[in-house]
Structure formats: structure tokens, C-alpha cells
């Protein structure tokens, strides 16, 4: 009797499913795009591979998930008139990070690193000739996205999803040991190295279990993980390739106060702060207080937390319909 071996997750796909899966993979293929004279390259996913006439939905990754959103999400956006273009930030797993000089503590604090990333993304937008862009910043990418919204005139509307602004929210991270690790990265250089090694060890050992623990407070995020395990596995490999100084820079920009974020920072841009409902009251109250100070409207999506736009795609489209598709709303009314 012969033994039929099935793939690790689920049953062997049917030939029809295999063809569909091959289309999905090709449609979301990452490509390396040269900017400037070609010495600088970024990993980019242009959904369906070529820039189309649809409105660009430019997504910039958070440190916890340097992968594009699911095929299902991209396809839903496509049907609604948006083409997902996902950019993997420099140093996040498969391209060189910023030069070491910019990642020194003093330079990070001065905003030099974060604004350089914004300038690089601005250049990518010029290379791809994108216009009338909706920018979606995910989690730790938001300090870069705030700056990008200011320097790039081709961005018409920005969504800062799960943005930390200057909130005192370390206590919202779950589980407790993960919170401890984050604290460690902020304290000393040795603490940073210890904590990043710890995270990488856990990811190498059992990525799925790591994500399940970190995402435990949101049913929507857990469902998203459940349906996109291959993406999370790839994300864990990319995270393991991030250099400690890039980790440190990203966490510092997210978790420490950003002195450059003055009250009127967003006064000339159309933007909203976005969060999932599946989070803690502390997060919501801190987000609302900071958004009020910065004169940004706050929007909530019913499902998801870290990945709320992906987990609540229908509601995310409703939000775009209200703000982005309605150019008659002046900035003053938005803010």
C-alpha cells in the first residue's frame, strides 16, 4: 500500500487550485527596483506586476510583518479601484539598511534616519511615476510615513494605521515577556542585542507560535495569521535577517517620544489615524489624546489590531470612500 504525503498545512491542492495559487504568487511577486543611479534598490510588490491606471494604495511595512498583504486583500482593493503597491523598507530583510552613521543614537534622535527613509520612498514614487496616492503606513513604519506625507506632493491622502505617535503604551503589548523584551531594547545596547537575539530565536524555533502569542488580543489578527501562514513564515525569515541597529532605530522611533511631532505637524495634509477595535482601552485613550493634539481624526475598524486594514478590508474601503473619494472634504474639516 502506498502512502500519500500531503503538504504540511492542509490537503494537496487540486490542479485548478494550483493554477490559481500560481497566479496569486505571480500577482504578488516582489521585485527589486533601482532608484537614482541604480546603487540603491528597494523590494517592491506591484500588484499584478505593472503600474496600472488605478489609484495607487502605497503600503509601507511595520517591523513585525515585512510582507505585502494577502492576495485576497489586494484583489479586493483592485476591484474597488485601488492598486496595492507594497514597499519593503531598506534593511528589513533583503536589502541593505541605512548607512551606520544614520543609525547612531544621536542621529536617530535628530530625525536624520527617519527622514532619509522618507526621502528614499519619495524617490521611489518618482521612479514609478505614481500620482494621487493613498498612503497606508503600518505600525512602526508610521514615523517614516508622517515625513513622507509632508515631502511628497503626490500623496493625496494618508492613513496612519496603528501609529504610536508619542503615546505611553508599552503596557499594551502582550504577552508580558514580549513587553519586557521591548523595554530591554530601549535601555542599553547590550539589552538591545539580547532582546533581538531572543526574538530571532523564538521566530526560528516556532514562528507561528510566536505570532499567535503576540497577536493574542485580536481575533481578527489571529484569523489573518491562520489564512496567511506562508506569509508569516516568510516574514519571520526576513525579521531574522534585520540587523540589530536597524531594529534599534525602528523601535526607538516608535516607542520613544518623537520631539519633532509638533501640534501643527499635519496641518497641511489630509490624513487619519486608524486603529482596530480589538485593542485595549489604554491604547484607545492614548491614541485619541495624541490624535486630538495633532488635529487628526481617529477611525476604528471592527476587526483586527496590528493588521486591522487587512482584517477589516470592507470597512477599510468604506473609510477610503468617505475620505479619499470625497475631495470636497477640506483639510480643515478632516482635521
Amino acid at each position, binding site marked *: 500500500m502506498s502512502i500519500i504525503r500531503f503538504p504540511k498545512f492542509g490537503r494537496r491542492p487540486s490542479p485548478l487550485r494550483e493554477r490559481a495559487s500560481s497566479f496569486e504568487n505571480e500577482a504578488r511577486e516582489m521585485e527589486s527596483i533601482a532608484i*537614482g543611479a541604480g*546603487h540603491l534598490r528597494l523590494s517592491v510588490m506591484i500588484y499584478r506586476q505593472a503600474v496600472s491606471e488605478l489609484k495607487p494604495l502605497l503600503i509601507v511595512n511595520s517591523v513585525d510583518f515585512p510582507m505585502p498583504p494577502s492576495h485576497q486583500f489586494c484583489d479586493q482593493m483592485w476591484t474597488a479601484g485601488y492598486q496595492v503597491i507594497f514597499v519593503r523598507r531598506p534593511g528589513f530583510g533583503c536589502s541593505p539598511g541605512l548607512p551606520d*552613521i544614520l543609525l*547612531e543614537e544621536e542621529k536617530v534622535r535628530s*530625525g536624520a534616519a*527617519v*527622514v532619509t527613509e522618507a*526621502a528614499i520612498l519619495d*524617490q521611489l514614487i518618482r521612479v514609478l511615476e505614481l500620482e494621487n496616492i493613498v498612503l497606508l503606513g503600518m505600525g512602526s513604519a508610521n514615523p517614516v510615513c508622517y515625513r513622507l506625507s509632508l515631502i511628497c506632493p503626490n500623496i493625496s491622502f494618508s492613513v496612519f494605521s496603528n501609529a504610536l505617535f508619542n503615546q505611553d503604551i508599552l503596557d499594551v503589548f502582550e504577552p508580558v515577556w514580549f513587553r519586557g523584551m521591548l523595554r530591554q531594547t530601549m535601555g542599553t545596547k547590550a539589552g538591545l542585542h539580547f532582546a533581538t537575539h531572543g526574538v530571532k530565536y523564538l521566530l526560528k524555533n516556532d514562528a507561528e507560535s510566536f505570532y499567535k502569542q503576540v497577536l493574542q488580543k485580536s481575533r481578527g489578527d489571529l484569523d489573518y495569521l491562520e489564512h496567511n501562514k506562508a506569509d508569516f513564515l516568510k516574514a519571520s525569515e526576513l525579521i531574522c535577517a534585520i540587523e540589530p541597529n536597524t531594529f534599534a532605530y525602528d523601535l526607538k522611533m516608535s516607542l520613544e517620544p518623537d520631539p519633532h511631532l*509638533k501640534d501643527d505637524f499635519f496641518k497641511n495634509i489630509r490624513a487619519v489615524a486608524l486603529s482596530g477595535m480589538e485593542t485595549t482601552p489604554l491604547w484607545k485613550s492614548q491614541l485619541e489624546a495624541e490624535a486630538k493634539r495633532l488635529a487628526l481624526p481617529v477611525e476604528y475598524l471592527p476587526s483586527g489590531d496590528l493588521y486591522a486594514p487587512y482584517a477589516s478590508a470592507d470597512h477599510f474601503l468604506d473609510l477610503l470612500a468617505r475620505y479619499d473619494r470625497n475631495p470636497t472634504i477640506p483639510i480643515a474639516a478632516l482635521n
Partner: protein
Amino acid sequence: MKKDSEEIKRALEMLRMLEENLHDAQFQNAPIAEELKHARDALASFLCPQSILKSSTDNALEKRSPDDDA
């Protein structure tokens, strides 16, 4: 600090981008002009630590400083 040629080329690219953005930001009096300047200066000192680099943007601004007007 040991610099490899690829890193120097990348840093040069970034410097050029920053100069472009800095010029626009200063022209529009944008709040991030100061950050762009820090980044530009850091990369310039990395690429050429012995010399004091001054960009055309800075020189142009210096020429238009209020002291000069007075």
C-alpha cells in the same frame, strides 16, 4: 570606520535625494527641513569627514539671512 564602495555609492545617492528634498522643504518652510539638514550633514561627514561641506542650499539661505538684509 571602514567604508565599502557599495555603501559609499548608496550614501551618495541618499545625499543627492536629501539635497533635493531639503531644497524644497526650505523653500516651503516645511517643519522637517531641520531633520533633512541633520541627515544631509551626517551623510556628508561620513563621505568626506575631513572637509566642511556646505551645500548650495545653505549658501543661498545664508545670502538671504535677516542680518544681511539689515
